[in-house]
């Protein structure tokens, strides 16, 4: 067991944990930040995607000891009121079905749009193929990412 100070969604959290404990379980079971999901535990499905310094990573395979002072962002840090453009696009395109994977999908999409404001279908394939959706919402995710990219170019407006 060791002590860690984590920077999550702009706040500071102190936890005691086994150095090998994956960040996913620190978030979910120790800090009760349950928007980040467990799907496979081996970086195959992307349900656990969070950002480390803005980059999408699989928190199920990231030991807490490797986090250091990097800034962690979870779905709760994207916005709780769905004000983020990606969340707005997700709602506009009616993406979620069961919804379990969607927080991870959104985290991957936000990271993609941060580094590429104008992604092509191929860019979307590359960035999103690590996130599995068993309900098959992929066509809507693709549309929502294009929509979010378009919305980012517009002045902010309440479209729904």
């Amino acid at each position, binding site marked *: 067991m060791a002590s860690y100070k984590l920077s999550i969604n702009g706040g500071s959290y102190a936890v005691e944990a086994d150095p090998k404990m994956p960040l996913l379980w620190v978030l979910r079971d120790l800090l009760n930040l349950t928007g980040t999901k467990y799907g496979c535990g081996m970086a195959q499905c992307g349900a656990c995607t969070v950002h480390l310094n803005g980059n999408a990573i699989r928190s199920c395979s990231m030991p807490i000891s490797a986090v250091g002072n990097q800034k962690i962002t979870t779905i*709760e840090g994207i916005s709780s009121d769905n004000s983020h453009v990606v969340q707005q696009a997700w709602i506009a395109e009616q993406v979620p079905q069961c919804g379990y994977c969607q927080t991870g999908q959104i985290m991957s999409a936000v990271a993609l749009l941060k580094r590429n404001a104008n992604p092509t279908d191929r860019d979307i394939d590359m960035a999103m193929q690590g996130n599995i959706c068993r309900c*098959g919402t992929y*066509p809507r995710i*693709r549309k929502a990412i294009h929509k979010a990219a378009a919305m980012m170019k517009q002045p902010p407006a309440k479209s729904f």
Partner: protein
Amino acid sequence: MSQSTYTRRRFLKTGSTVTGGLLLSFFIPASAKRLGEKAGSNSTFVPNAYLNITPDNNVKIMLAHVEMGQGVWTTLPMLIAEELDCDWNKVIVEHAGPGEPYKHTAYGLQITGGSTSTWSEFDRYRQAGATAKAMLLEAAAKQFNVPVSSCRAEKGFVIAGDKRASYGELAEAAGKLTVPTNVTLKDKKDWLLLGKPTKRLDAKAKSNGAAQFGMDVHFPGMLIAVVAHAPVFGATPQSFDATAAKAITGVRDVVKIPTGVAVIADHFWAAKKGRDALKITWNMGPGENFSTASQFDSYRKLAETKGTPAAQAGNVTDALAKTTKQIKAEYIFPYLAHAPMEPLNCTVKVSGNSCEIWTGTQMPGVDQATAASILGLKPEQVKLNILFLGGGFGRRATPTSDFVSEAVQVAKASGKFIKLVWSREDDIRGGYYRPAFLHAVQIGIGENGLPAAWKHTLVGQSIVAGTPFQGMIKNGIDPTSAEGVMDSPYLESIPDHAIELHSPKAPPTVLWWRSVGHTHTAFVMETLIDELATAAGKDPVAYRRDLLKSKRHLGVLELVADKSGWNKPLPAGRFRGIAVHESFGSYVSQVAEISLDNGHLKVHRVVCAIDCGLAVNPEGVRAQMESGIIYGLTAVLYGEISLNNGRVQQRNFHDYKILRMNETPQIEVYIADSTEKMGGAGEPGVPPLAPAIANALFAATGKRVRKLPLQAADLMKA
């Protein structure tokens, strides 16, 4: 307030009170309607078990069916809101717990499955809304001192001339009235919501992490349980050594339960590490000798023997002998895991003479009764709270209540408040699979090129045998095994046919998997019809036109042919295939467009037409077709659970692959404008996809696909 149900704070603060109130409502006559008292207000209007209206104008709708992605969170409220004429933005949705009013109108059990939710609630939910509106109108008429006939309802208000009162203002007075028994439903032409594309009420909560799944249940003092399951089906734990497991920081207890050995810890990570450290001796039993490779050999031998007749006409043996051209084919389908994204889980708290459960389940009533029986309680002493299901596809509808039972067993054996969490490996290896099937078919072709004789034998485990659903077996036939063949629309054009079924037993547990028997029967029928069309030198669409008499089959066939441009040439290197199949009361036809590049299959486009009768929420039907197509495509490309020496060979998403974004085709969905009987939407999109792909592959390679998933050889030219 958010339209979502369980934001964390609300769930923790009010979850049990609200559910307590709901449970109470089952046992009191609707006219007594004192649910509001339990919820802390006596001015809540509770006309029936399906909705209530609070003074702040919120309309709370209780779902008899559960939300697992298929959209009932939106569709069922639409039915009430249409008749209630409430403000759609004031609708709050909750899952009802187990209770009499929530039993399935057709099945008599509280269950979400069979793509039945919308049509089976179409009258009951509209009736519930209409009843409430009638009472609000009557309350308003009294308050305004005008006849009821001069009052009208609109967006949550009753209006009479210049008088106006909100539903919230009328709630208390309406609650004192007698519930009318006879209300008139709206005429279709007056519908404001039904049949209109409507946005999901759960989309917001599912876009910001607020949506609560069973996996997200968290209470102070709750521990996490992970179970070491038997390595082979039917094995039981004999003895175990937990010394190393108990030495792991955070591990609190290790207990033996009927299905394995449970490690209970402060969090999942410690519990899983504890499980890895366990040393267990198992009583293996005969399951250890089972392998899927030899299973199909024995199925093949069985198929050569006489099975139980499922459908029969004329004399197929004589008729076959008279034909000179024949097709003989054998098809093989593997076990399939549902693999919902949310691994199975269940939270259980037992205290004295009561038990409270939190989980995502398709069969709350069965789970409640099973939990009660394990604990020696009465069902009403078990309170079951339903959260969002992170996918179901049938896996959360186990007649044996497998994961709920297991959680209750852990709580009972340990005396602790636990959340049982299955790992993905537990899920992939945990059984309750779509049963493996073998079909042996012999078709005699008549002079006109149409099938004259059809002999068809199916071999596969029964899903319902030995379960509370055994009553579904009629004359020795489990319809979930042979549906789609025994009732195939082609049979009425085939004078001599014999469909037979063998239902052997095998160690792996089996279950309904999205579209159930149709997952394999549609494939066999629709690829064989394609093969017959080729043999007759006819276009596959024209050939089906000659055979099919059902106008709904023909309707979607023509619609999809038109929308896909069936009669127009494709670019070089592109090929297409078609299939049409009815399941769960809906008729679906799909055209798949593919290309092959050096043994690599690319599915470019899938065009889909559905006739489900009235599409209550066309947006939801569209989403379910997209979903079914992608679910079906995963099975075609990758779906296979195999066993060797009793052990499941796959364990996680790296070897039980799921379709990904980069493999997803462009999908177009067309909904037939239909006034026919309503069917389902959750499952019927799955069955036609696989045969449409296989028929497209034949167009590309000249080879027929007889086995799923696709093998490398299927993707090379003959």
